């Protein structure tokens, strides 16, 4: 079964609650309508009622079965504001102002367990969605870096079934430090564990394989590997590997002299920089005819997603299913 089919099946079983803070966009109300009618989730759409109804009309859907409300008029504002400023010196009036913002209100719904996931980004910049996520939902245990991953689905060939890999980070961190790269690796292993059918095998990619080259860029990757191992010894992670060593068993057998459960059979590829990650996923997409699904945010205490501004209703529904599959 494909990764998307599994995600849809998982979403249908869980019947989770998804909050959409960008209810003014017709694609959002159309997606919420489809999720509700196909019984994949319980959608909540935020926005001023007249604006959401206008969006529903533009999308040509009947919004009667969808929960929708204006966060600025919610009875939960004070509770969310109080939780938002917990442990900080922020003034109550500022906290109240923050949680009235739809992105932050949606984040607080997830943080307080009133929704399982937030799907946003059609009308907010990635940085804004991440900022709201960090300030409301917060990071997952042991993680201090927000990052992103793509699901790369490679078509079946004569000697191999369709395969799905996780690529990270291809969209958020431009030049992560060793600490940040370790965070990306750990978060990616956790994302893969929830979404792939096989256990995650995480390869730390580099221009070098097991010390074949000496350079600060290589050292960053080996440092990140050590940090990731020290933080979470349960993850199957290895490196530093060139991409062929990570993916091809014959190459790995020649180049890797130590016993490795990752070399030659990696399904999670951690790129050393955003240059490498972004170029890598696009080359795989266009030269290997792979389907790139994402990017999805990761590293947060609960799953949240950042849609591209050009996302279609199909994209939004699929993203919602993948987010719910991770809950």
């Amino acid at each position: 079964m494909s990764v998307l089919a599994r995600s849809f099946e998982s979403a249908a079983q869980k019947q989770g609650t998804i909050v959409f803070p960008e209810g003014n966009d017709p694609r959002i109300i159309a997606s919420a309508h489809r999720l509700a009618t196909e019984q994949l989730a319980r959608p909540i759409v935020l926005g001023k009622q007249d604006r959401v109804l206008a969006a529903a009309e533009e999308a040509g859907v009947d919004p009667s079965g969808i929960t929708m409300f204006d966060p600025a008029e919610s009875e939960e504002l004070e509770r969310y504001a109080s939780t938002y400023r917990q442990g900080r010196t922020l003034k109550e009036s500022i906290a109240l102002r923050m949680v009235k913002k739809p992105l932050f209100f949606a984040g607080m719904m997830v943080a307080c367990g009133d929704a399982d996931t937030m799907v946003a980004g059609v009308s907010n910049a990635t940085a804004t969605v991440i900022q709201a996520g960090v300030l409301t939902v917060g990071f997952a245990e042991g993680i201090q870096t927000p990052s992103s991953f793509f699901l790369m689905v490679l078509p079946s060939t004569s000697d191999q079934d369709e395969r799905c890999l996780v690529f990270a980070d291809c969209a958020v961190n431009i030049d992560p430090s060793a600490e940040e790269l370790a965070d990306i690796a750990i978060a990616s292993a956790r994302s893969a564990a929830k979404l792939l059918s096989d256990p995650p095998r995480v390869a730390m990619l580099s221009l070098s394989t097991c010390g074949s080259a000496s350079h600060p860029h290589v050292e960053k990757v080996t440092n990140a590997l050590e940090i990731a191992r020290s933080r979470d010894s349960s993850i199957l992670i290895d490196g530093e590997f060139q991409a062929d060593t990570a993916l091809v068993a014959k190459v790995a057998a020649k180049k890797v002299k130590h016993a490795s459960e990752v070399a030659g059979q990696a399904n999670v590829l951690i790129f050393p920089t955003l240059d490498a990650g972004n170029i890598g996923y696009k080359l795989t997409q266009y030269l290997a005819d792979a389907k790139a699904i994402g990017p999805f945010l990761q590293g947060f205490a609960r799953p949240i997603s950042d849609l591209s501004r050009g996302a279609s209703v199909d994209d939004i529904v699929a993203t919602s299913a993948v987010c719910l599959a991770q809950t």
Partner: protein
Amino acid sequence: MSDSVLDRVKRVVAETLEIDAGSIDDAARFVEDLGAQSIQSVELVAAFEEEFDIDMDDDEALAVKTVDGAVEFIAAAVEKQHG
């Protein structure tokens, strides 16, 4: 005489970033000079909205990087919304 927009901007910045208002130069950059984490900038915008009783577009407001830039941006918003 009431405080100038500049004084009020500096006071809000000082409170939000927990620094001394007297140490803030007019041309100071929020992140590089005043130590604001990018994550705090959205709360700084909310604090300005509160102080001046205005609404600001988050994306436009977050593009302002300096104290004097904020003064100019806020003065324009106040003029537009209360002028």
